[in-house]
Structure formats: C-alpha cells, structure tokens
C-alpha cells in the first residue's frame, strides 16, 4: 500500500455538505429490505427453544416427538453444531452461546431449534421437545458473583492477571490494571479527597429490528446467508468456522440493518439457521422475537465501581483511582478492562490507577454497546469529579478545564496523546449560551465529559466508472446510519465530480475483499480512507486514458476538478477532458475504468465530548424530565454534518434512556422480568427535548481529510451529566443507574429524614 493517509489540510467542495442519502427513497417508501424482508423459494421457518432456567445442567434432550410432527423438517441440538473451534476459546464461547452444550447458562440460552413448514408448526414442535434439566443455583448480581460462596458458573475459569496463580476456579475471569505514577503519594498531596461507590444496571442496545436471517446450505457445501449484521465479512468467518464451511463458498449478504449499536457484531442465530438448513436441505428463515432479543442477545455489562479522586486546593487533581467490576454474562470477556482504560482518559493525571474485574454471571453473553464499557466508568468518574469540584468550591467546568488532557499528556491507559479535543469541547461548553440559561425551581444543570478510542481496521473498496461517467462505489462496511452518503461525498470530492454522479452500495462477501465490521466508530473513518485510495487509483487510470486520447505521455496529464488537464507548453492546444468524456471512450482506450483499494485504516483518532443537560425533578414522585440537552463533540472533520449530528443526538438519547429508566430486571428465579419494550423503557418521542449539537473539527492527523470516528462517544457523558443535573436540582447524589423514580424518591426521602 503506497497510500499516504496523512492529513493534508485541503479545502473541500463536496465534503461538509448535506445532500440526501442514496438509500433514502427506498427507506421512506418501504422498499428497503431488512433482515426479515427477504424470502427464498421453499423456505422453512426456524425457531429456537430456550432455557427457562438461569443455570441448569442439560441432562437429556429428547427431540423424537418433535421430529415426528408433520411439517417438521429438521430439529437440531448442540450435537448438530459440533465443536470445530480447535482450541479457540473465544469462538468456543460463541458456539456455546449459539447452542448450549452441557449447561444452560442464562434464562433464554438456546438449547434446541426446529425448522418447519410454517410458524405454527415450528411453535408446536418446540413444545414437543423434552429437555431434562438439573437446575443449579444461579447468580446474576455482579458483586454477589464475586463472593467466594457464589454459585460457580464455569469451573475451568481461574482468574487471569493475579500475581499468584489461583488454585481455585472463580467467577472472576480476569483482573487488569492500568495507570502510572504513585496514587498513594498522590492522595497524600491532596487537600480534598472524594471517594464514592456506584452501580449501573444492565442495558440493551435496543435496536428496533430483531435479529433475522435466511440461510441456505447446499449439499455441495456452497451456502448463502442473508442477514442483518454490522459486519457480514466477520459473520462469514465465524459461521464458516462454526459450521466447517469453506469461507469462499459461504456468501453473506448484509441486508439493510435496523439498528445494531454493537449488538449485531456477534453471531447468535445465524449458525443455528445454517445448521437447520443443512439438516433440512432447504432454506431456513430465522427471525428472533422481541422477547428473544432481550433474553438472549445483546446486553451490555451491569457494573459496580469504586472511585477515589484527590485534589489540591488550587483545583489540581493529584491522584485518581478506580476499581471496576463488570459483568460479562457467563463467558470470559474484557469489558471491565475497557472500562479501566477509559475511566480517566479525559484527564491529565500524574498518579492514576484503575483495576478491572471481569465477572461471570447467569445473564446473556455481554456484547458491545456503543463505546462499550465507557459510559459506566464515565458515570462514576464524572460524578465524583463534580463532587470534588463542589468540595473544593470551584466551578465544575473550570475544574475540568484545569485538569483536561491535552496534546502530550500521558493517557491514563498508557500512550501519549496527539492533538485531542477534550479541552476545546470544554471551552466550547463554557462559552455555550446553554450554560447561562435561567433555571426554575426543581430544575438543575449538569455537565460531563466522555472519551472513546475509535477504531480503523481492514477495509476494501471498489470504485467503478460507468460509460456515462457516473460512479458506483462498492464498500464492505455496513451502513448503519448514512455512511453511503458520506462515502459518496468522499468519492465525489476526490474525483472532482458532483455527489449526484456517485452511487454507493454495500457489497456482499463474494464481491469484495474482507472488511472489518462497522464497529468502533470505524465505518466512515476507514471506508472513507479506502474510498480516497480507490478514487486516487481510478484517477491514475483516468489520466492514462486521457493520455491515450491525446496521444501524449501520462506524465503530462494532471487531474484537476474532475478533468484531465494536459500540462506543459507543447500541449497548449489541448482542452480539458472531463471524467465523462474519458469514460465514454473507455471501451476503446483499454476497457472499464476502476479504482480498487485494500488497506488497513489505522490511526483512528481518539474522540472526546462534553454534554450539558438540564433536568426537572418532581420532588414528590422522583420523576425526572430532561428539559434541555446540548452535545459538543469533536468530529475531526464532519463529512456529512447532518448525519454527524444524528450520531450525536442518537447517542445522547440512548444515554438518557440508560440514565433514567432502562434496566434488565431479574427475578429471584433468575428470569428476566421485562423482555419487551413495554417494561424495558427506551425513551419515547415525548420523553425528550430537542438535542442541540455543536460539531468541533480538530483534524485527525492520520486521515487525509482529518476524519475521526463519531458514532460512539456521544453515549459516554449522558449518565453522569444527568446525575450531576439531578444533584444540582434537588441535592441528592444518585449512585445507582438508572435513576428511576423509585430510586430518586427514596434518595429524596432519605435526605429529608437526614
């Protein structure tokens, strides 16, 4: 790859404008095809039988009655998905999560599946499968699971990362530590120390589209999978590995995706659908119900976090420490580790230490959720930061500005920062009119900061120029919210043509080289880099063709504003050749014109945001309404500012839901009590105010246009911003998320009773 990704500081004509998205009309007319909107001839209906127990040994599964039911074409259990993971522990966990092998590890864990001629028959068949369970004691709470007497979920797990190798298995799969300096010394220098404990409940990504796929496996080992996913190439790898298929023979097409937010980065039902199709010899459509989505897919960690921060009278933080315990579901994970890395990333700290514990519980396997693990850590840290500012008697914005990380600061997770946006977002907040708007009784204002890494990764893009001069752009990163528009803008910018001349699509796995998923805020960052590279390769071809048409040396041809231009005095008589003119002649000058790119887009710049929030609390009921909200975030360069705003607003809304009402509620029996949108309360339209946004552009030095990822950071600050606002409104420090009315009212009552 001889592509130079460095920021060039150029000016733009397309990038930064706000055209309509290329997939828009299909989506407003109902024509866009999502996971469940696709059908194949002879297709069967797949359904999954799930454990009603939080923790149970599967002694025996008798499928004989179900198999005999007329219309049932296949019944599968773990036996039909043999372990082909070859010692890959992570893939084995994925396999076991798709279909429980020896034990059911959570309420909703798949234990068997059927494929039948229709939904009714499939449903009846599930009832005929007899599963003999030996119910075991279970544990769902993060702190309880860490106790020595807690029911053990996996006796092969011994805590990693301890100085001495443990002799007994544990529900703690790993301990990790980050930081630098000496926190003991740091706290000794502090005039004020705040030490608090916090809890956050488990939330779900809450995408409106349930997981859905259509799988078709042929006897010759070729297979097709239509699926809603954030990464069809990754799904292909995983499904091929779990099913023993050859990667190139499994073609995966990503449907339009009805929301993912991290929840569609893992395979769940897809290997099951493929196994059913293989056994039945017919295509199988498998669509999760909403109940299954909540019980068996998705959620983020529940957490328990202790934070201690010390500062001098002048407002300088001298030391910061946190212990973070995150649930992983019943399999090992690295969620607390990410929390430990991100917790203090906003600050310039000489002495910092964070310790993370990954905790196994009888809940669904934790999946990434938008800046995974960062919001909970930020809730704890930013709440404590506000408390500390209050104790010192310094304005919370000033306090943060004084301690904000900057270029050259050693991040709490290790490396030294390049140019970053935390300071500028804080300065912008300080000057924002929202900060000076008046507040009424029982209203309060809070603010908080957030950080996320952002990723790049493997990317492949094709750019084909039609004979009419229009451009089709094929990318392999799934478009979750407008990236086809952004990438078309980038192609138009680079080629020097109009946006309307470019049409971007997401290609299937057989049409393009491997792409990483749309996760880690990487979609636009990495695919725009590959698009720039592909466009530059196409320009090289365009110049060659123009040189042919003029019969001059290609060295004498430059590309300017969508045209080939002949350079040098001897070519003074040659007019410009437009892309369209060159394309029209392409059949006679060497065939189709295309640019291709495969690269690893690394160097995604880290991202920071600061949010301001006003709430009104009803002191008699504890009911809290967000009445004004402002997001300030660094985008590096906003390619399509409207969709950047959309990411800011969407992340804030998800954070507001998490802060106030969303939570997994388990009964004493370990069963999920609220697996539906009625009682898992995501914000509705009337719950929210307009969400104001301010885009800052601090260019990422590692992207030609300065682009940073923008998708995730916006969910990080809201939990703390709202907690700080509630504290300022009614004087209670909420340490348990969600701050539901019963929790707030109980805190208010406790405060009144002194």
């Amino acid at each position, binding site marked *: 790859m001889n592509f130079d990704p460095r920021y060039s500081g150029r000016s733009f004509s397309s990038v930064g404008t706000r055209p309509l998205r290329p997939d828009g009309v299909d989506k407003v007319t109902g024509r866009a095809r999502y996971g469940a909107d696709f059908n194949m001839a002879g297709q069967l209906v797949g359904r*999954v*039988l*799930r*454990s*009603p127990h939080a923790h149970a040994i599967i002694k025996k599964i008798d499928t004989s009655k179900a198999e005999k039911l007329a219309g049932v074409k296949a019944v599968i259990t773990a036996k039909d998905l043999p372990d082909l993971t070859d010692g890959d522990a992570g893939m084995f966990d994925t396999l076991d999560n798709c279909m429980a092998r020896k034990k059911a590890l959570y309420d*909703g864990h798949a234990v068997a599946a059927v494929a039948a001629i229709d939904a*009714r028959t499939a*449903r*009846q068949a*599930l*009832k005929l499968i007899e599963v003999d369970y030996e119910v075991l004691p279970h544990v769902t709470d993060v702190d309880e699971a860490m106790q020595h007497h807690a029911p053990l979920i996996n006796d092969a797990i011994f805590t990693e990362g301890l100085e001495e190798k443990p002799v007994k298995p544990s529900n703690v799969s790993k301990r990790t530590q980050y930081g630098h300096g000496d926190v003991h010394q740091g706290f000794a220098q502090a005039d004020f120390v705040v030490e608090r404990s916090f809890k956050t409940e488990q939330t779900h990504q809450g995408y409106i589209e349930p997981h859905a796929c259509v799988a078709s496996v042929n006897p010759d080992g070729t297979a097709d999978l239509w699926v809603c996913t954030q990464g069809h190439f990754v799904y292909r790898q995983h499904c091929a590995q779990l099913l023993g298929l050859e990667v190139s023979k499994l073609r995966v097409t990503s449907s339009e995706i009805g929301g993912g937010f991290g929840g569609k980065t893992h395979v769940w039902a897809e290997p099951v659908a493929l196994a059913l199709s293989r056994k039945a010899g017919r295509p199988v459509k498998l669509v999760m*119900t909403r*109940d*299954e989505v909540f*019980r068996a897919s998705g959620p983020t960690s529940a957490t328990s976090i202790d934070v201690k921060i010390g500062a001098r009278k002048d407002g300088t933080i001298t030391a910061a420490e946190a212990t973070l315990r995150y649930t992983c579901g019943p399999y090992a994970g690295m969620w607390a580790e990410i929390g430990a890395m991100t917790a203090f990333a906003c600050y310039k700290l000489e002495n910092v230490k964070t310790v993370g514990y990954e905790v196994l519980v009888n809940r669904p396997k934790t999946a990434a959720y938008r800046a995974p693990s960062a919001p909970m850590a930020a809730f704890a840290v930013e709440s404590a930061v506000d408390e500390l500012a209050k104790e010192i008697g310094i304005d919370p914005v000033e306090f943060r500005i004084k301690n904000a990380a900057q270029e050259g600061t050693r991040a709490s997770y290790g490396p030294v920062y390049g140019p970053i946006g935390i300071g500028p977002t804080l300065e912008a907040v300080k000057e924002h009119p929202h900060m000076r708007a008046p507040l009424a009784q029982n209203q309060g204002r809070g603010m908080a900061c957030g950080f996320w890494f952002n990723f790049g990764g493997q990317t492949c893009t094709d750019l084909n120029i039609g004979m009419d001069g229009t451009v089709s752009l094929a990318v392999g990163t799934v478009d979750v919210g407008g990236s086809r528009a952004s990438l078309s803008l980038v192609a138009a910018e680079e080629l020097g043509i109009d946006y309307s001349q470019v049409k971007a699509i997401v290609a299937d796995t057989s049409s393009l080289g491997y792409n990483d998923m749309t996760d880690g805020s990487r979609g636009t960052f990495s695919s725009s880099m590959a698009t720039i590279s592909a466009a530059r390769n196409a320009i090289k071809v365009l110049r060659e063709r123009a040189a042919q048409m003029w019969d001059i040396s290609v060295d004498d041809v430059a590309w300017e504003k969508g045209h080939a231009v002949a350079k040098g005095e001897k070519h003074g008589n040659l007019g410009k050749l437009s892309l369209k003119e060159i394309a029209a002649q392409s059949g006679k000058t060497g065939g189709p014109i295309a640019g291709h790119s495969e690269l690893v887009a690394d160097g995604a710049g880290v991202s920071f945001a600061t949010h301001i929030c006003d709430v009104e609390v009803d002191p*008699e*009921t*504890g*009911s809290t*309404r967000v009445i004004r909200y402002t997001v300030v975030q660094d985008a590096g360069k906003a390619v399509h500012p409207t969709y950047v705003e959309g990411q800011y607003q969407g992340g804030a809304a998800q954070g507001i839901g998490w802060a*106030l*009402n969303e939570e997994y*509620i388990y009964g004493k029996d370990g*069963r999920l*009590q*609220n*697996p*539906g*949108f*009625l*009682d898992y*309360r995501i*914000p*509705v339209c*009337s*719950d929210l105010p307009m969400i104001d946004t301010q885009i800052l552009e601090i260019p990422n030095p590692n992207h030609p246009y300065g682009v940073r990822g923008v998708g995730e950071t916006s969910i990080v600050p809201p939990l703390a911003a709202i907690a700080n606002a509630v504290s300022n409104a009614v004087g209670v420090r909420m340490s348990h998320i969600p701050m*539901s*009315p*019963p929790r707030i*009212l*109980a805190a208010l*009552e406790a405060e009144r009773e002194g």
Partner: protein
Amino acid sequence: MQEADGHYKESLYNGRSDHDHQGETMRYIRPQSIEEAAGLLASAAGPAAILAGGSDLLVRMKGGFIEPELIVDIKAIAGLSEIKETADGFSIGAAVPCAVLGENAALKKAWPGVVEAAKLIGSKQVQGRCTIVGNLCNASPAADSVPALVAAGAKAVVAGPNGRRTIPVEAVPTGPGRTSLAKGEIIEAILLDKRAPNAGDAYQRFIPRTEMDIAVVSAGVNLTLGEAGAIKSARVALGAAAPTVLLVEEAAEVLVGSKLDEATLERLAKICAGACRPIDDKRGTIEFRRKVAGVLAKRVATTAYERAGGK
C-alpha cells in the same frame, strides 16, 4: 373470557409455557347479534376469546399464553360500536375504541376523568383499537380506565345465556386476570350516569416515561359540590395499589364537606397511602406506590374540584 385490552402481561414466554392446547381447530367467527355471540361462547369446547380491539388478546396469543379454540369478533354486532346519549346518561358499547371516547364532545364534557383515563391506554395506535370494556375485563390491577370508571360509579351491562344484568364495574374484576363473568357472558356496554351540575372527575397515573407505560400507581376522583362549593359527595379509587382497583371510602369521607383545603388534601394523601396494599415488582416498590398514591390522590382531587367549579 372477555377480551382484554390494556397490556397486562403475565410472564410466560417461550420455553416457559405450560399450555398444551395445540390449537389446530381455531375458528374465527363474527356474529351479528349478542345472542349469537353468547351462544357461541357458551358452547365452545375449548378456550374461547372475545375480540373487540384485540390489544391484549393478540399480545397474549403472540406470547403463547393463550391459544383459543374460538375467537368471537363482536365488532359486527349492531350497536356495540356506538356511544349513545340517553336520558339517564351515556351507554358506551363494548366495541368502541378508546380513541372514539375522546372524539365525543358530550362525553368528554360530562366525564373528563373517564375519557382522560381511557385516552392513556397505550399509544395512538393502541387507542385506535382498545376498548374500556376490554381494559376492564383484562382485569389488570394497573388498568388505566378502571379507577376512573369506578370513581365515576360506572355500571356494566352483562349479556349472557340467561339474559342481561347490570352490575357496578368494580364487581367485574375479582383478581389479577380474573373476572366474575360466567361462561358465555359478555359485557355489552358501560353505563355512565347523567352528570349532575357542579360535578367533576379526574384521573392520573404515575409512569416512568411520558407515554407507553403501564401505571405504576394511579388515582381517580369524582366529586359533586354542594351549593356553597363544599364537596357533597365523592368517590376515590386507586389503581395498581392492590389486586383489584381500590374504592377508598375513608378517603371519600374525608373529602365530603370540605372545600379541599391543604389539611384535607394532606389527610387524603395519608389515607390513600395507608389504604394501598401494593406489591414490589418490576414497575415499582411498595414504598414508592404508597407515597405516590397519596401524591396523585391530592393532585387528582384538586383537578376534579376545579372541574366541578370549586375554588
């Protein structure tokens, strides 16, 4: 079993079902008369369900909680989709969607509390389907329209194989998910009295969001004022505070004779909080429900009083 609207759901999901009914013989019938409907229900061999709005029935069918052998759609029965204004008051047919209640100006003027309660069930979409009779017969302790109907002194006209009877609405639900209706019986209509002058009713519920939730706790108050503006008669009902709607007579006694001064409101709150027999569940705690029941009673009584022309 009467059809049910109002989103009350017992947990009984995939893998948890203890129903064995195979449902291979399910029938959908749209009778033309109440007698035909009652006859169908009375002679059904397996579980039978009445369908009006379907906003509870279909949810329960989807979840596998019920697989009826017979679905009786009562919307084609003459008169059941109408609100009639009579000399005695209003008769609201069993198949009238809640949205229609809000579009009836006379009903809204006479019984604003009943209408605002009915208009709180579910979303706009659910409003277009759900009925107050379904809400009543679903027998959820948290049903929104029921406390308002009980406070209003509404009556239910029950038609069955043995003719018709009229009973107070509070006599319909007997516990969560259970009613006093016999096999073959259908509630044909809800009756509301003609409104006395200087009377007003109101209903409020507490929900964590602003819409789309089930009441965590709720209160309905119906007041009639005397000539001097003092409360002459009162009915106070609480929802989601006990297995069935609570008609709190002690609370009504406190209100009668008062002009709803601060002290009366405080006593009302205390009595209502004390009258609650709530449970801890996913929607709220016992403590929370008690406190908020009192808070809502105060707020609702104040609104009802203003609507009655008080202050």
